[in-house]
């Protein structure tokens, strides 16, 4: 079986779709490069299909910790000034963002 047969058929359209889901604006050249890179990565990842996982439960976390609670009280908190310090655009006490509602977004 040659390497190409194992290749997942990643199409340009699929890569564009994933870029959209990822909220990444890629140029056409970047889309093509990503397609090549991901194709070669998937050739490697596809080896996982050879492992027999029938009847095995997925494990998403090594420590199998249970969620912890604490009392719903106010503890340390950030000041407005601290929060706004790193904002790209500030208007008064607000973070300035483009209009989202009332029209095409």
């Amino acid at each position, binding site marked *: 079986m040659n390497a190409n047969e194992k290749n997942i058929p990643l199409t340009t359209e699929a890569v564009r779709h994933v870029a959209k889901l*990822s909220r*990444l604006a890629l140029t056409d050249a970047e889309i093509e490069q990503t397609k090549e890179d991901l194709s070669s990565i998937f*050739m490697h990842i596809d080896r996982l299909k050879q492992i027999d996982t029938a009847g095995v439960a997925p494990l998403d*976390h090594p*420590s199998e910790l249970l969620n912890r609670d604490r009392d719903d009280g106010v503890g340390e908190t950030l000041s407005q000034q601290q929060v706004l310090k790193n904002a790209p655009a500030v208007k008064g006490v607000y973070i300035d963002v483009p209009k989202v509602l009332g029209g095409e977004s």
Partner: protein
Amino acid sequence: MTSTIESIQNGESTVSNVVNAAFASIETETFNAFHESWIHESQTDIEGPLKGATIAVKDNIVTTTGTTTCGSKMLDGYQSPFDATVVERLIASGATLVGKTNCDEFAMGSSTEHCAWGVVRNPWDMERVPGGSSGGSAAAVAAGLCHAALGSDTGGSIRQPAAFCGIVGYKPTYGVVSRYGLVAFASSLDQIGVFTRSVKDAALVAEIIAGFDLKDATSVDEPSPNLTSGLEKSVASIKIGVPRGILTDRNDAEVNEAIQNAIRVYEALGATIVEIDLPLTDVGISTYYVIAPAEASSNLARYDGIRYGHRTKKKNLNLFDLYAHSRAEGFGDEVKRRIMLGTYVLSSGYYDAYYNNALKIRRLICEEYDTAFSQCDVILGPTTPTPAFKIGAKSDPVSMYLCDMYTANTNIAGICGISIPCGFANDSGKPLPIGLHLQGPAFADATLLQVANAFETATDFHHHHPEQVS
């Protein structure tokens, strides 16, 4: 580090002398190890167990002083409003933090070539990488710029650079060190750990940063473990597992030779060597490169140009395009590649075949370790298949990913691991360090460090430093 702390305690030296000397050498360093160096705003002159120690912090761990950029244009100039728990604990212990070290962007890389602030160089050979993603921290300690440095390890990002730079790199059991303030890459894999020049120093620093933290929901509810008092114990009753087939021609011959020599050292110390089976080592990287990018794609969704981080200067964009351009401009190629990979394996139609399947293999990897640890106390092998490679040598992503082939399963299973120097490769003309990788069961960190310490005491590889070789 220990000897400096002692000389402060008996008045032979002062903290300010030590710190000034550190800043002087950081000022003139040529490895690009440091992104910034400073005195932390809450640094005080207190009596503590680490008084006199100079410690650098990887730039994906937040500090209120200076900036935290994670090696990325996305966070250029970002000033964290809080300190990571590990930062607070180190300052409270009397240590002096000396600045932030360069890393692969958002901890994604195995060479520190993907840092927005430039490549970091290996102090043993300036044409070679220090490893990654914690390359700056590793280079800083290897070059003697500071006593210790914090790093983070998601698939090998402390242990691999420690091997390439000839120093100790320790990744504690998942949950032992708080991740509060560690910028998240893959939340179920990330751990903060330490780089030092000796196992004892690593144990000392780790004891300070470890222990339960209410602010980290994945922090294990145990106090900091005692890692130092049993360090000198003999390994005569220890069983060391060597995975069948770990020393093949996948590794450089000199790496295999160094590991075989290490096995003989342990035999001479009275340890029992046991052959074990870890066949899933072969698929560790594939499993890792499904799980880690999937988690990363989720964790990096917060960088949207809205509340902090880079926002595109392009005007009149709708919200979607604001996100898409801010992210495309702020992230480097490797980060974008991994986000795309992660999004893909989580997307509808592929989730079961890739992500869910990888989680099943994750369980199998854990079970394989459980079986192995029923036969041995500690697992031994090479940290990396080769010593440090030349800058630019691994432009193909997959060949770069394979650098972590021996370290990724440690994170997948959440167990503890350490790399210690065990030899040098001389084939290239300059001596290049080789790392010995030891892994222990979850929460057996004290035993892991004891076994590492025994090797170090019986050998002198850790006494070799790059400044002696030029």
